[in-house]
């Protein structure tokens, strides 16, 4: 007679455990499918589903992104045996590749969820390859088959070609109607291997996520590999070398349920007294402080910031508030780094490092939306290694750190970019990548309609508005994924912008020599448009070192008077002046010149010159150089 199987939180035989994650692109319906799984498993009664769902949204809105079900324990009976499924959430975006790889490391299987109306996207594909690298069992699924515009045949073919299965093996589900979801759960039980850790060995658990919850403190999500952790046992973080007293351990099913222990193969959470997420790092290995493991689990490293940008409060008095807000965001976001920075033009602010552009946008949006800060963000910058003539190497994350005088060598970071697009846009995307110094690699048809193109490009070329341009040139159909791919030396120069003869550090940029003239001409022209005429003439120049490469002039304002101000005009006129006064407060004073915030935003876009005057001026500047 078979041995009775243990299956309760804290004591679960590994043979009945199936840990999986869902890989999906934003909007491809991951949460709907996940909700449907919770409902089918019976841990959330159907009548509560809607309420719970709404509740969760409210709390999420109120408390940020901390309440998501990161790792839910779901029961599922198949063939008379009750199994325990560990459903692990994965962040959806390219910037968080590192977190994705940790989530994958916590699973034995991955559901590849693809929108049957849209097909696979570049980021999904890159996560899929990562899952294949981790030897995960892949369960391909097409979602949204209830929609009239779904093309399951076509996209099943595409997926089959990518992972080498039969198109008929691709499951078809609808998160909305629930169709096919039970089959999916059966499939998970059949296809995903059970964990095979050593239950007798010293405890080792992988931290795959860690969030700050304002009520509970840091909640750390773990996947037990070997051994057992007990509720009152001190734990040790092997990577950062800190020991914590656990306040609570448990599983989520679907609420936080404390348990006495967590055993090999199980997924659960641990709450310690850690103050911020940096004390409980994703990727670190947790072990027992009493009976520690000797080797951590593989693959621990810090995610490295790839993009830097300065954040400055419009009103410098808000500097302490900005610091406080960044400190608060940091609780939840270990990857965010920042150091105080002083700009001659913008005053006191912070130099911030981000994982990528989306990360940068999220942080800046949260600062303005959640903390009500009015910020100026400087153009994003990558990290350059600049060797000056005397052989000294400068680590440049900010144009102001660019050494004066002759430069021997500049090295810039490179990325490998993967772009998936409908084939009719191949020409347009090739042009775009070429304009951005991309070196073309291979190109594959992933179906008869769509191709994946591979480029090696300087990261600096991507961090401006490459993604926006890619979207606009492909009518929104292309998707992009990129990852670090070494470095290269390049002919780069620093272009300075001078207003009334004074260098404005916030507008300086490090650009390729071929683009320096167009940057200079475009910036001076944009500033001439954006800076209002003032009482005096304002020259605006672009320069490389001491050499002026472009010049525009804002003519002096001659007249601003209102012609009539009789009895009935006085109140209106006074209110108008008061409004102008308030508007002036939102301007930055650079010397005597009032510069609107839009001017700083303009430096963030690099659209190609289209008008004749700009093109002529760029040509003239280049000629002078030659």
């Amino acid at each position, binding site marked *: 007679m078979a041995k009775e199987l243990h299956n309760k939180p804290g004591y679960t035989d590994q043979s009945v455990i199936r840990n999986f994650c869902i890989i999906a692109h934003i909007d491809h319906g991951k949460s709907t499918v996940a909700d449907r799984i919770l409902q089918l498993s019976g841990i959330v009664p159907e009548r509560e589903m809607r309420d719970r769902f709404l509740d969760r949204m409210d709390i999420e809105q109120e408390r940020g992104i901390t309440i998501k079900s990161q790792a839910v324990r779901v029961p599922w009976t198949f063939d008379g045996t009750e199994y325990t499924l560990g459903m692990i959430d994965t962040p959806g975006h390219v910037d968080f590749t590192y977190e994705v790889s940790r989530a994958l490391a916590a699973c034995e299987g991955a559901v590849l969820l693809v929108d049957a109306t849209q097909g696979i996207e570049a980021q999904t594909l890159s996560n899929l390859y990562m899952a294949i690298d981790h030897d995960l069992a892949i369960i391909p699924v097409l979602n949204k088959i209830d929609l009239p515009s779904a093309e399951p045949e076509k996209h099943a073919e595409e997926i089959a070609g990518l992972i080498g299965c039969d198109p008929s093996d691709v499951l078809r589900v609808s998160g909305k109607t629930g169709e096919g979801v039970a089959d999916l759960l059966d499939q998970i039980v059949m296809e995903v291997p059970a964990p095979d850790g050593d239950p007798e060995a010293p405890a080792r658990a992988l931290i795959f996520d860690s969030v700050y919850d304002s009520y509970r403190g840091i909640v750390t999500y773990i996947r037990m590999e070997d051994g057992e952790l007990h509720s009152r046992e001190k734990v040790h973080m092997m990577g950062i070398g800190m020991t914590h007293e656990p306040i609570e351990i448990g599983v989520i099913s679907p609420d936080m349920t404390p348990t006495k222990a967590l055993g090999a193969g199980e997924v659960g959470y641990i709450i310690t007294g850690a103050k911020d997420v940096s004390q409980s790092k994703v990727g670190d290995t947790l072990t027992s402080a009493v009976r520690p493991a000797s080797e951590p689990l593989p693959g621990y490293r810090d995610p490295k910031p790839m993009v830097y940008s300065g954040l400055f409060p419009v009103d410098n008095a808000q500097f302490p508030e900005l610091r406080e807000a960044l400190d608060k965001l940091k609780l939840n976001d270990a990857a965010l780094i920042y150091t105080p920075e002083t700009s001659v033009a913008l005053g006191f602010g912070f130099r911030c490092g981000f994982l990528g552009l989306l990360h940068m946008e999220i942080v800046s949006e949260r600062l303005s939306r959640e903390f009500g800060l009015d910020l100026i963000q400087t153009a994003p910058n990558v990290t350059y290694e600049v060797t000056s003539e005397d052989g000294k190497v400068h680590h440049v994350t900010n144009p102001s750190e660019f050494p004066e005088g002759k430069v021997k060598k500049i090295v810039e970071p490179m990325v490998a970019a993967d772009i998936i697009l409908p084939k009719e846009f191949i020409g347009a995307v090739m042009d775009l990548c070429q304009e951005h110094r991309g070196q073309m690699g291979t190109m594959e048809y992933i179906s008869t309609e769509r191709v994946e193109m591979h480029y090696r490009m300087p990261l600096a070329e991507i961090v401006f508005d490459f993604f926006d341009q890619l979207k606009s040139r492909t009518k929104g159909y292309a998707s992009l994924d990129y990852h670090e791919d070494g470095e290269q030396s390049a002919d780069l120069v620093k272009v300075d912008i001078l207003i009334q003869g004074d260098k404005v550090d916030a507008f300086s940029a490090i650009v390729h020599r071929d683009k320096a003239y167009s940057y200079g001409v475009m910036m001076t022209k944009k500033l001439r448009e954006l800076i209002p005429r003032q*009482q005096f003439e304002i020259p605006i120049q672009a320069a490389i070192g001491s050499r002026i490469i472009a010049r525009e002039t804002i003519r002096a*304002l001659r007249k*601003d*008077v209102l*012609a009539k*101000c009789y009895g*009935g005009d006085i*109140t209106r006129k*006074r209110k108008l002046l008061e409004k102008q*006064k308030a508007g002036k407060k939102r301007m930055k004073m650079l010397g005597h010149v009032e510069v609107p915030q839009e001017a700083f935003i303009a430096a963030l876009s690099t659209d190609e010159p289209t008008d004749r005057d700009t093109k002529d001026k760029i040509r003239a500047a280049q000629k002078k150089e030659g």
Partner: protein
Amino acid sequence: MEYEVYIHVPFCLRRCGYCDFNTYTASDLGGGASRGNYADMVIREMRTVRRWQIDHGIDEPAVSTVFLGGGTPTVLPAADLVRMVDAVRDTWGLEPDAEITTEANPDTVDADYIHELADGGFTRISFGMQSAVPHVLRTLDRTHTPENVTAGVRAAERCGLRSSVDLIYGAPGESLDDWRTSVHAAIDLGVDHVSAYALTVEPTTKMGRRIAAGTLPRPDDDDEAAKYEIADDLFSAAGLQWYEISNWARPGRESRHNLGYWRNVDWAGMGPGAHSHYALPLDGAAGGRGEDACGIRSWDIAHPRMWGRKVTMDEVPWQGEETIARDENAEETIMLGLRLREGLGLDHLSAVLGRELTSDMFRPVLDAGLAVLENGRIVPTRRGRLLNDSLIADCFEICGL
């Protein structure tokens, strides 16, 4: 302190494309506000306002100036205009040498009409000349001819009335020479007062819509600045001195009524949309309006029918009012004073602001060439007149406003 009365007449024979004033071309606007009994309605409002003043402890002296503006006051019979002036005299009393002005459209008055006004006590007529160039008049939708203006001015002269003409510069299509022509024409009329206004395009007007749609070119600030300088040079040379940004006169012939606005005196406005202003004593005895209340501004209901209804019920027909606090009063003192040749008196401003200002503090605007200091007064230069908004903003900052 002086006390003035303004009477708004919201009727025109047709609406000009650039005009956003509160005026209507229909002759009956409902609620009793028709051309036929408009004078009676205004007279009724005077009685109600007088009662409100007394109830609120405001006891105004005899009226020193009356101004009828519009709209086109002269679409009403001359007798109606005279009756309204008589009512002012009956209600508040009228100073013996009071200045009594009406605006007039050159093609709505003839010699008899003007004669009747003169007999009824009027002392001044302000003609809407706008331009002496036919194509500019057409762009402005004006129906009169340059000859109408000459006839009107001559008629006024014969009756002993002083004349002023209004000009507008910067209309789409007006060249610098067109403008010189108009300025010379105004000078050649021999009037002792001229107002010249840069065309201000309001987005809600017909002209504003045409400019937004791109079918008319937008007036250009630099062109208007050049035209301002032309006007200022030519008028000065002809003995007409600037005394306010847009007004030139032979010394002693300034519009006393308009000077009152810029000196922030008290006035009562009658008619739809008209504004009124009453200063309150600076000691704060302002009956529940807050300790730093310095004045009251109110404005009549703009829509003639709703206005008429209130007037008929003998209620003050105000749409709204505001209490002017100390800082707002200081702002108004600055923005109005800096329009004037007499300038902004620092002693007066110090009193309004409640703290001592020194001429040294105004160094930045003097150094920038926006103003000069004359006997303790900040007087705008020509540059300071053209860049008046900048000058005002700088002075606000200097005064900590």
